[in-house]
């Protein structure tokens, strides 16, 4: 294929056809939202409202002091009924604000267009992005304003439009439906980090997105390069995308800015544009609700705090009982205990697997087929770590650098002996602490 890529990886069956052509639709206003105060990597917010308060859409309801944190906002207007612990899709349970809708979706009057953002300084841009509560929408939910103020000199901004997780298509839909706003956002991020070189990486199984961006970039005479990258999982992993696009390797334990790079997701760029141009805080996002048993899989613009169950029901429910509900994609997503969990900033997808699709094949002995070794994007020896973990030899496993593992799961996916390699590696990582 000849397009840029990294060493290792695998062609994983994508299932994207379920929602690839499903244009983004807005979900109906939820009757109630549960908005966790921890929707990002970092410090949990303090609630700024109490039970009984009336809130407006977009009103800030939680914030915290400190660098690595991001405020949260009300996603509907209505009345706060509970401030306290509630189900959380990542943390299990976490403090949250529950709002009962008044059905009117009254906007906070503070949300006003910023005028011409070209007049804004870098610092003003970054503080607006922080104020809007923008975090990485790819899943990790790292506060964007922190990324935009790297502690080392950077010269490259990479926009991740890869979306290599099977099933998910919400970023793809944004790329083809709202290219100009995304490009505006990229321009803002570029100015905020202060770099000249911008690469937009898109997997080559999304030719329409690639063409759209190439056309718009040349029409608008923007100084960005749109780079098709080989479709291969995990092409969208930060370190692998950096390797593919600018041939730099982030050393073990280091971050992208250590090699002079800032990476941001395409959806995040759009959110940044909305924040800066319209003053709109991050209170909704696009989510792919999918699965072979979901009656009408969709890409949906969802108010944060809407429950998974409500969205699945809005997609017509399922044709077979759900065996597993995953937040995110099938490779790295998190299986949920309950479908009552709310959509948070890091929810890129809701994947329903039927009981028939549950894969828990018995583990067999390693036949040393080398598939995991060939596929590991970090050039690790997954089979060896897996064996050490099973023999409870965490010490011996250290030479294999389990801490380098990015938990992409491709080793487990390819293993013909159905070994739960990543699970074993996670045990090693916990043991190593």
């Amino acid at each position, binding site marked *: 294929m000849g397009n840029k890529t990294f060493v290792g990886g695998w062609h994983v069956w994508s299932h994207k056809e379920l929602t690839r052509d499903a244009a983004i639709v807005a979900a109906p206003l939820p009757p109630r939202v549960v908005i966790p105060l921890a929707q990002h990597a970092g410090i949990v917010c303090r609630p700024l409202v109490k039970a009984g308060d009336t809130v407006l859409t977009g009103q800030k309801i939680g914030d915290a002091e400190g660098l690595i944190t991001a405020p949260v906002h009300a996603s509907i207007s209505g009345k706060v009924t509970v401030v306290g612990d509630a189900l959380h899709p990542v943390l299990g349970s976490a403090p949250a604000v529950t709002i009962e809708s008044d059905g009117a979706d009254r906007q906070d009057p503070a949300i006003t267009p910023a005028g011409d953002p070209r007049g804004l300084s870098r610092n003003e841009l970054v503080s607006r992005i922080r104020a809007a509560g923008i975090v990485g929408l790819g899943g990790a939910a790292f506060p964007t304003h922190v990324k935009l103020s790297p502690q080392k000199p950077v010269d490259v901004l990479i926009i991740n439009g890869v979306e290599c997780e099977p099933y998910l298509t919400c970023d793809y839909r944004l790329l083809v439906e709202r290219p100009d706003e995304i490009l505006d956002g990229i321009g803002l991020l570029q100015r905020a980090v202060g770099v000249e070189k911008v690469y937009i990486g898109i997997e080559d199984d999304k030719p329409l997105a690639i063409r759209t961006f190439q056309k718009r970039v040349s029409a608008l005479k923007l100084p960005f390069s749109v780079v098709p990258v080989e479709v291969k999982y995990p092409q969208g992993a930060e370190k692998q995308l950096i390797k593919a696009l600018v041939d730099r390797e982030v050393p073990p334990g280091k971050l992208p800015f250590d090699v002079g790079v800032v990476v941001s997701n395409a959806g995040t760029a759009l959110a940044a544009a909305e924040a800066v141009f319209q003053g709109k805080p991050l209170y909704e996002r696009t989510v792919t609700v999918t699965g072979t048993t979901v009656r009408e899989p969709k890409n949906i613009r969802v108010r944060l705090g809407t429950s998974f169950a409500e969205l699945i029901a809005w997609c017509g429910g399922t044709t077979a009982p759900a065996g597993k509900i995953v937040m995110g994609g099938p490779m790295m997503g998190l299986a949920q205990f309950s479908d009552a969990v709310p959509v948070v900033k890091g929810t890129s997808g809701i994947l329903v697997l039927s009981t028939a699709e549950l894969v828990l094949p018995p583990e067999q002995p390693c*036949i040393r087929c080398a598939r995991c070794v060939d596929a590991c994007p970090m050039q690790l020896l997954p089979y060896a770590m897996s064996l050490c973990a099973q023999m409870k030899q965490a010490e011996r496993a250290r030479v294999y650098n389990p801490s380098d593992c990015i938990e992409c799961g491709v080793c487990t996916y*390819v293993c013909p002996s159905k070994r739960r390699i990543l699970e074993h590696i996670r045990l090693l990582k916990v043991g190593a602490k």
Partner: protein
Amino acid sequence: MSQAQSNTVVLSVSSSPHVRSSESTARIMWSVFVCLIPSGIVSWNVFGISAAAIMLTAVGTAALTEALFCRLQSRPLTVGDGSACLTGLLLAYNLPAQAPLWLAALGAAVAIIFGKAVFGGLGGNIFNPALVGRVFLMASFPSLMTRWPAPPMFGLDAVTAPTPLAILKDSVQQTQIITAAEIIPYTLWDLFLGRRGGCIGEASVAALLAGAAVLLWRGSISWHIPASFIGTVAVVSWCFGGQGLFTGNWPVHVLAGGLTLGAFFMATDYVTAPLTKKGKCIFGVGCGLITAIIRLWGGYPEGVSYAILLMNAAVPLIDRYVVPRRFGGGGR
């Protein structure tokens, strides 16, 4: 809007990834088995029904022995994964076509017991089980193992027709200056298509290559071991296989004997080969060197089996020191 009720069904919460590829150990083993079948059919044609009987006996005995030892060692029954049947078939391919059936059965049983079961079953063994069986038979019953039938299609009735490699070896050792065409009653084309004496599975290079091509295309095996193995044999035999340097009859060395079978189907056995690509190349070159040394200077006309077994022993060492470069650099 109807209130979406929370599931009363218990949701599964195993950790990611939540999907798996469709490849399985059994699929891999059986696909190798199937890819060996064309070659078996050619052998049947060339050597007659006795070859077919040997193959069936070896495969059957291997499966039975595997079942028995799964019982004895109270392991789950693993006959279905195809690896025992594959071992049986490979062992049969390493026997002369006129070998008695009991020899095939004995070899298959030894292959499974001492090649695999004593190591705790599939995945634990160091040596290629089929080769363990063959070497046991070579050591115990050398005369039975080296009586090569001449292919009936040559119209010869000789019980022992020398193999091409034995002829070639004798000629070089007698330091006569003759060309290959004069000394070997088979042409290269005969060797390629399967008209020659030798082991059951050595009959037709063409049929073996057809099977190997499918395995390569399917991704079941990689090219690293076969290419480095055969390449090394070709280069060494060309350099040192003749009267002077660079006069060796390398095409015969490549096409004759068990090289094709060994390089594509036995040296590539996952369990007993290195895991990294670099390791595989080292392994292949090692196999090639040992094969060539045995063929050119050793006591046997053929050295593929011994070469693979010796290199099997080196695999733990190779795997330990030949590791991929760590992503992002830094020491290991």
